């Protein structure tokens, strides 16, 4: 499934992603290529729904790697992201081994001797057996390598960022009781952020910074084509041109690529052959998520539809 040398060039990346239905701009392809070449994580920023998470998925399926996803939220900590001790198992084992412990220690004459013997197997309960690996540790342990997606890093606390630094720069983590665990194969790391808060400089410094904005008209048409193959070329062009017009308005939430695709699907379902005033009005709520946005857009619909139709004549 995976190419022998999948990352040979930027073009190879571009076509590889395209084979998974992810139409990447040149800049995205360059970022993915560079991330592999100089072994750096990619920090992807941009508005919601432009395909940040999708990028990681596409890379994973293209290269036939496992994708490990860590969804960030406020209050996410070491125990949920990195590793945790299996307390219950530890407890259970101590209970079961109680008799055995008595046996072993029974032979000791003095308290000191008992302690000595205890030291000999003292680390039994803090060994790898009892570690529950969480996403970050799992990612390091994958023997074939993997794609690690750290989603919406801006939602986590500032402390969590610092926890990531070691992983991002050296692909290793330190567990106090066990020592340092290094990656078998450095994973491809992708962080996404919606710029809800400013990330720390230390984190940014360790990453390639990729900003994915709304795509250009041509590119968006290709994206729709690959995602909704059933749509007619005529309608596709009109639809994308209409959405680009909407994005020029001052809205609370601009329609992004995912909404474009949803809308295209809806239009195909409704068997619309062409963009029409009524169809657009009825399905505008697929595109816009706020009532005030819909109200702001309604007066412009006629103009935009006319423009989209006209453009098609000349384009």
């Amino acid at each position: 499934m995976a190419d022998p040398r999948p990352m040979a060039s930027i073009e190879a990346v571009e076509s590889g992603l395209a084979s998974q239905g992810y139409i990447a701009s040149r800049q995205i392809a360059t970022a993915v290529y560079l991330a592999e070449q100089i072994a750096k994580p990619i920090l992807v920023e941009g508005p919601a729904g432009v395909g940040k998470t999708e990028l990681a998925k596409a890379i994973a399926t293209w290269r036939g790697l496992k994708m490990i996803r860590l969804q960030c939220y406020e209050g996410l900590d070491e125990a949920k992201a990195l590793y945790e001790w299996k307390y219950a198992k530890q407890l259970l084992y101590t209970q079961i081994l109680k008799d055995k412990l008595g046996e072993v220690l029974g032979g000791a004459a003095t308290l000191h001797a008992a302690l000595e013997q205890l030291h000999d197997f003292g680390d039994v309960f803090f060994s790898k057996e009892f570690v529950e690996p969480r996403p970050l540790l799992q990612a390091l342990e994958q023997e074939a390598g993997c794609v690690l997606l750290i989603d919406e890093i801006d939602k986590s606390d500032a402390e969590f960022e610092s926890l990531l630094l070691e992983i991002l720069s050296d692909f290793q983590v330190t567990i106090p009781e066990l020592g340092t665990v290094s990656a078998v194969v450095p994973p491809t790391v992708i962080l996404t952020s919606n710029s809800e808060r400013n990330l720390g400089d230390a984190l940014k410094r360790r990453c390639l910074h990729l900003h994915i904005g709304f795509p250009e008209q041509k590119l968006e048409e290709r994206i729709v084509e690959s995602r909704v193959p059933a749509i007619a070329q005529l309608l596709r062009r009109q639809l994308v041109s209409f959405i680009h017009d909407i994005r020029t308005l001052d809205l609370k939430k601009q329609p992004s690529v995912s909404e474009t695709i949803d809308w295209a699907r809806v239009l195909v379902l409704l068997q619309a052959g062409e963009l029409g005033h009524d169809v657009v009005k009825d399905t505008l709520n697929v595109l816009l998520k706020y009532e005030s946005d819909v109200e702001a857009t309604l007066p412009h619909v006629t103009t935009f539809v006319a423009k989209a139709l006209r453009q098609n004549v000349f384009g």
Partner: protein
Amino acid sequence: MQENLHRFFRAARGAGVRVSPAESIDAMRAVASVGLSDREVLRDSFLLTLAKTQDEKRALGDCFDLFFAAPAPSQPANTPGEADQTASPQASGEADAGSSGAGGSPTDGVGPLAQMLLAQDRAAIQAAIATASNAASLSDIRFFTQRGLFSGRILDAMGIARLRDDLEQLTVDNPALAERLAAALEALRENVRDAVSQALLLYGREEAENLRNDILRNAPLSRIEPRQVEEMRALIRQIARRLRERYSKPRKRQRRGHLDVRRTLRRNAAWGGVPFLTAWKRRHRDRPKIVALCDVSGSVARVSDFFLLLIHSLHEVVSDVRSFAFSGHLIEVSEILETKGADEAMAEIMSKVGFGSSDYGSSFTDFERLAMDAVTPQTTVIVLGDARSNNLDPGADIVRRISERCKRLVWLNPEGRMTWGWGDSEMLRYQTFCTVARQCATAQQLERAVSDIVAAYQ
């Protein structure tokens, strides 16, 4: 090439992109792996490795275009400078005539620079300018006043002294050739001047901006000229961004030492209540609540303008702002400021309450009637005004009541301490009720004052 990359990094720093050594190493590695052949890819690689915000990407993109538009010695074919274009047609025509007539012998006696100029070898000239620029460390240029200095140094390094001698010699021996040389020299000067101007654009921008901002920060707000208002606004926005970055950190602090029993029990329910994981009590920090009263009469108006702009751009830091403006009487202006642009809002406020003579007594009475219940023990009340009440009732008792209700009462006065209490100033009377009373006349003082107010909540 490495040399060029280093110069590009310096230029990028000049454009306001923070390029750390580690990032420059990344960029070098990226360049090594993508190669130099494709300009777009190279540009993307720099944007990916060096710029870490959208603003930085824009600045770096511009910087890249400017930098690599420079006549690099490795690309001889491009860059026809304007000077060359005008000079070269006749010059080359003459050159043909001259060389066929004179047989090339007169050029043997002259220095290398003159030979180069006469030979019209543009690539060599550009290369020579680049080398001389390096020798004169052109990338150290910071201020526009240094342009002449650096042009001189570059020309010196290229050997202009020898050229002058040659020119003198030729005027006697071969006037036609001398004329050509003089024209070429003029073109050369222009090229050098262009190179220096471009270097100034690349390397000097940050320094020039710093200098200008520094002057602006310490200029009295009430006396800045109209043309500087826009720059001042930009500066205020910058200050707001800085304050936001400093104070919008999460407002939860773990307090070690106080066990949160309920949360600990809940968290450990899975292990039969044996407390493996502890939960500690947290202390929530309040976000600042601000009530601002701004005098908008006469000379104080400008300061109020900037103050309101600053306070209202601190959304992430301050949870709740209510602003009031007054001169003769007082109105609430929060909504105007929230919904309109800076210019429009100020114009509307001025048309409603501005241009009167200030009456602190009646304004404070208005406030008590209108919005006294907005003042809670979490509120900081900020009064911005010169406390000159035209010998009318100062309303000091209301100020006392406000100060009793609120967390802090801060008075910002555009006038210096020396004048407080003189003439019709009631400042000394008000000051006794204030938690802090300070002068606030420049952007810098404004930043300090607001920063202190917000910091009191941390």
